[in-house]
């Protein structure tokens, strides 16, 4: 009995320690998610059901937004990882001095507000008076200059490119940190075994940075899915809704079109999509760890 009472007291004490975190999680994470799901089940006339979801299934813009969200995730994670890794490798392996300067320069875009970046890149992309146009004009190719943000076929890619530019520095930084943790002796031993050049990167460095890559991929997915300001400020989701993502479409339906319950349904889709991607990512990571154990 005494042991049981002591155990219960210990449990109660443990719960007491956990309580603040649980309260914060409940109020700021769990409750909004549940409230949002409940809101998504309220129809435009107050009726309860799945009408918002069936409406979304028939909404062409919703499908454009979903497709673009997938594009954002795939392209951002792919390019940010690839460019980040290659640049980090170049800085850490092939640049003998001034590495800190390169790292700082590459990280600088991260501290610029999206509104400034949006304005700068809108001007860079602009035909007639933009920076890129000036370069095309200088070599006599003014007529070949593409209005990338004004063409529904290219606008999303143009905005994604800006996001990749902004976030690459962060990936470089994280990979540099990861490379710093690689045991020098391991690299020397690998070199003795003939792992030099590309083979060293392919069979030694890249596998050793697996946990960094998985973490960056998760961060990249989250960042790509929640990206809003760049798209809103550069294109407002246009032209003709061609750059809408789930994040911008939630804002448009909720705050511009005043269809908050419909926006909640789109938010639930975004939540489910994010959750599925993150779970997939962790599952792949766990499978790889098990395989290498």
């Amino acid at each position: 009995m005494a042991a049981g009472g002591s155990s219960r007291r210990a449990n109660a004490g443990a719960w007491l320690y956990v309580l603040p975190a649980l309260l914060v999680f409940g109020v700021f994470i769990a409750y909004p998610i549940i409230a949002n799901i409940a809101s998504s089940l309220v129809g435009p006339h107050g009726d309860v059901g799945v009408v918002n979801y069936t409406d979304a299934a028939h909404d062409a813009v919703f499908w454009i937004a979903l497709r673009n969200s997938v594009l954002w995730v795939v392209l951002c994670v792919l390019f940010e990882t690839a460019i980040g890794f290659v640049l980090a490798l170049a800085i850490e392996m092939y640049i003998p001095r001034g590495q800190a300067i390169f790292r700082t320069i590459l990280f600088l875009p991260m501290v610029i507000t999206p509104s400034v970046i949006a304005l700068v890149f809108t001007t860079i992309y602009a035909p007639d008076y933009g920076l890129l146009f000036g370069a095309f004009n200088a070599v006599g190719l003014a007529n070949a200059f593409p209005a990338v943000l004004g063409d529904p076929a290219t606008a999303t890619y143009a905005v994604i490119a800006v996001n990749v530019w902004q976030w690459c520095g962060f990936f470089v930084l994280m990979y540099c940190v990861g490379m710093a943790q690689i045991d020098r002796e391991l690299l020397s031993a690998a070199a003795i075994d003939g792992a030099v050049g590309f083979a060293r990167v392919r069979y030694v460095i890249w596998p050793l940075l697996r946990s960094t890559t998985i973490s960056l991929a998760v961060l990249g997915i989250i960042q790509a899915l929640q990206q809003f300001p760049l798209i809103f400020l550069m294109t407002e989701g246009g032209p003709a809704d061609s750059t809408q993502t789930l994040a911008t479409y939630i804002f448009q339906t909720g705050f511009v079109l005043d269809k908050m319950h419909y926006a909640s349904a789109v938010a639930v889709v975004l939540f489910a999509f994010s959750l599925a991607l993150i779970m997939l990512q962790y599952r792949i990571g766990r499978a790889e760890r098990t395989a290498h154990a």
Partner: protein
Amino acid sequence: MTITASWTCRARAVLLSAALATASLAVTGHSPISTARAADPTVITVWSWTPVTPTMTAMIAAIEKAHPDIQIKATISPHPVYSVSLQAAVGSGNMPDIIGLSPGAETQQYRPHLLKLGAVAAGLWGADWQKNFSPALLTEARLGNPAGDTDFYALPQEAQLNNLWYNIPAFKKAGLDGPPKTLDELVADAEKLRAAGFIPFYQGASTGTFDVWTFLQIALQTDQEGVLAGERGEPVWDKPGMIEAAHVWQRLFTDHVFQPGALSALQYPTGANLFAAGRVGIISLGSWWLQQTGLSDQPGLKTMSDYGIFSFPAVRNGGAATPPFGGVDFGWGITDTASKSPAELAAAKIVLKEFISGVGEQEALNQLNDLPAFNGKTPGQTMPPHLTEVYDSYIKQLASAHPHVIGDPVINQSLISGLQAIGAGSMTPEAAMQAVQKTALAQQKAN
């Protein structure tokens, strides 16, 4: 390879400075505007996205000077931030006393939380108070009210007219005597302006509001009744006049009247800045452009001597240019928060009156913020002759202006998408207007 252990520390330092820089950027800009007050004044909270902070500060100072027993705490935020804040305030039951409102959808969205202002206005300006506002403003102020509800939930402080502006020196350099009178002249003038090194007609077509305004200016020539019906939410978008207007809109892209890549361009700040810098021949703006006189030291802009206004040229052979087109720039509503105490409500009414017809509006008007919604108000300062001419022309047009707001935001968004699709060449004018019509029919059914 020269990776050292201290790199981790340096990385932390970089990350920390990045976080601090980001945090410092994030906290700027949204503290309430207020001035020092006597003890125990009645505090009135005001939220809006307009007018700009310096104008609002001057308005508040003037009102608080005239009413020492009232303290105004105003928060001016960019419109997207304002929208989100207001929705959150509604959800938490913490709305400010007075909120800035656009006519139509925004006013209707908050109508359940707004006081009826018809009786309030009668108390402030007399039973015949409506004679103080032009008909277009009163129509827009009630836009979207439920059938049979003729009351007002927001009253306008400022009005605006939408039209085309042109750069006089650019026209002269291109060998043009004055603004075009027909669509064909507009196309020809655009070519001459381009040849002279100017952006002929800057359209920030990624800014949907300006697409709608430019399109409605065209449609007012081809189906005036249709425009008014469409603004009220009626499904009229596939009528021949509307499709004709959509074809004219398309021609502005295909005939290179608009600059290349117009669909990627922003009207603000890019277009307005380029126009102010003298790089643009024509731009679709409105009466609020007069604000520039107080924002620039450039003589041609300060006196507006380098700039002129004209209506969208006649699109039909023998037709007339677009008639006056405009309405409420912004207005104010009193929320049910103010009615929680009689003293607060009384103070809120005083502030409303001062915003619209009193010292507050006078301050805004002195900065040529836009046109006064309240008849008879005039700027306090003496203006140069050309500026006076432009200003008086606007005031004259306001009396007969056609409303410029589509009441249903879903239809408005559909029209923006359709117009951009026409510009991108991904839809024909017929298909785009059919899509808008389909949306309008669905909205009619849903409502």
